[in-house]
């Protein structure tokens, strides 16, 4: 049996939405203090809808795959929906992750939340 599901390996080998958005409306970077994985999310938002999303990840297979899956799940979604994304939903969409790897999918949820908070903060400042 392989360590990861086919879906995880697909998203790991061909990550979607990799990169940077230079003029992002919200940027979030989170790290796992324990294992050391780091994830950075960039959001482009128009009329409260996520028009584009990119990520960068320093981490293991499950961290990269869950970043990729999470970006796919929120792209085109209203901000209010994206706020509701959970690590459980990301892991399920990947056909599951090994138990000891769940913390890596938490990073994806946290990175998106952090980018959305950054967006809200910038909105208030303007």
């Amino acid at each position, binding site marked *: 049996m392989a360590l990861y599901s086919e879906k995880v*390996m697909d998203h*790991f*080998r061909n*990550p979607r939405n*990799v*990169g*940077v958005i230079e003029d992002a409306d919200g940027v979030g*970077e989170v790290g796992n203090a*324990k*294992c*050391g*994985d*780091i*994830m*950075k999310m960039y959001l482009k938002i128009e009329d409260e809808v996520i028009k584009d999303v990119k*990520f*960068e*990840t*320093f*981490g*293991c*297979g*499950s*961290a*990269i795959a869950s970043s990729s899956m999470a970006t796919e799940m929120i792209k085109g979604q209203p901000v209010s929906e994206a706020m509701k994304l959970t690590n459980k939903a990301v892991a399920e969409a990947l056909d599951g992750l090994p138990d*000891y*790897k769940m*913390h*890596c999918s938490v990073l994806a949820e946290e990175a998106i939340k952090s980018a959305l908070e950054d967006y809200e903060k910038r909105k208030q400042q303007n």
Partner: protein
Amino acid sequence: MIYADNAATTKMSKDAIETMVSVMNETFGNPSSLYEVGQRAKEVLEQARKDVAEAIGAQPQEIIFTSGGSEADNQAIITGARLGALKGKKHIISSAFEHHAVLHTLKKLEKEGYEVTLLPVHEDGLIRPEELEAAIREDTCLVTIMYANNEIGTIQPIREIGEICRKHQVLFHTDAVQAIGHIPVNVVADQIDMLSSSAHKYHGPKGVGFLYAKKGIRLTNLIEGGAQERGKRAGTENVPGIAAMATAVKEAVASIDKNAKNLIQKRDRLIAGLKEIPHSALNGDASKRLPSNVNFCFEGIEGESLLLLLDDKGICASSGSACTSGSLDPSHVLLAIGRVHDVAHGSLRLSLGEDVTDEEVDYMIKSVKEVVEYLRSFSPIWRDLVAGKKQFIL
């Protein structure tokens, strides 16, 4: 496929497999039985004991067979501790980068009231004999220092350690699991009192190993039962496995010179190639290391994703990354030699097989370069390093 994880385990040799099958077929008896097929199994067992003893310069009666390296480590350390307690000595010296079979046994003893000093391992992956000598106390009963490290391959100054221990009359155990069959080991010349070995690290079967204990050392049993192994390790002997181990150890020890010559050339070619990757570093001393071991850290990437992508390219390797450990902490070995968490996260161990070719080495260099570059291309840490927002460590 290039199998470059020989420190994890090795493929069994043809001869070891043949020995194993032939013993299973023809010498299936219980060595404790008095009839012919039992007595023949006994002969196989005792011949194996002679062969194994000869491989390390010991006497046959100084060898007991175990289920592998872990059991041998446990038994040696518990023995040293119990013998010490009889004399009121309950201090043990070891090093910070031992295998968990050693470290966890020491933890257990600490809970029982023993005191343990873990010597620092310097940046070169070596302990300092003078620091060992300084750490020895009146109540020190055991020194346990590994012969060669399983992750970074560094070879400890065992002969000097043996000499210091003998001088201070302290028992000296060494976990030689990574050394036997790969570099010359002689328990007399090295003044070793106890030594652990495991067959699957030198093309023998898994689940078999041996413990050498110098004549006169009264071993403490871990397993109680029948009178096998001179009453020191109960249980019907794994005769096919033990015979195969003997075949493997003879073969490996006889080929050390030939293999080492070839492997060192391949190892150094690989090291030179990987050094070309910017912001990378070899872990452990460049020459005081096992002929097969290459271990690098690459800044800005994580080890598990490196391994998965190398696997896609047909290369089997290992890493000390926190994400491969299951425990969230990066390798204690890399931390012990002073690698910080982020850097240890991006480690790669390639442990070569004796049949590795120059072409394979070049393919590994090319593949690692590609994968490191790719992973750095979307690593937020690498971006910060390149942008100068973070200081490069390597």
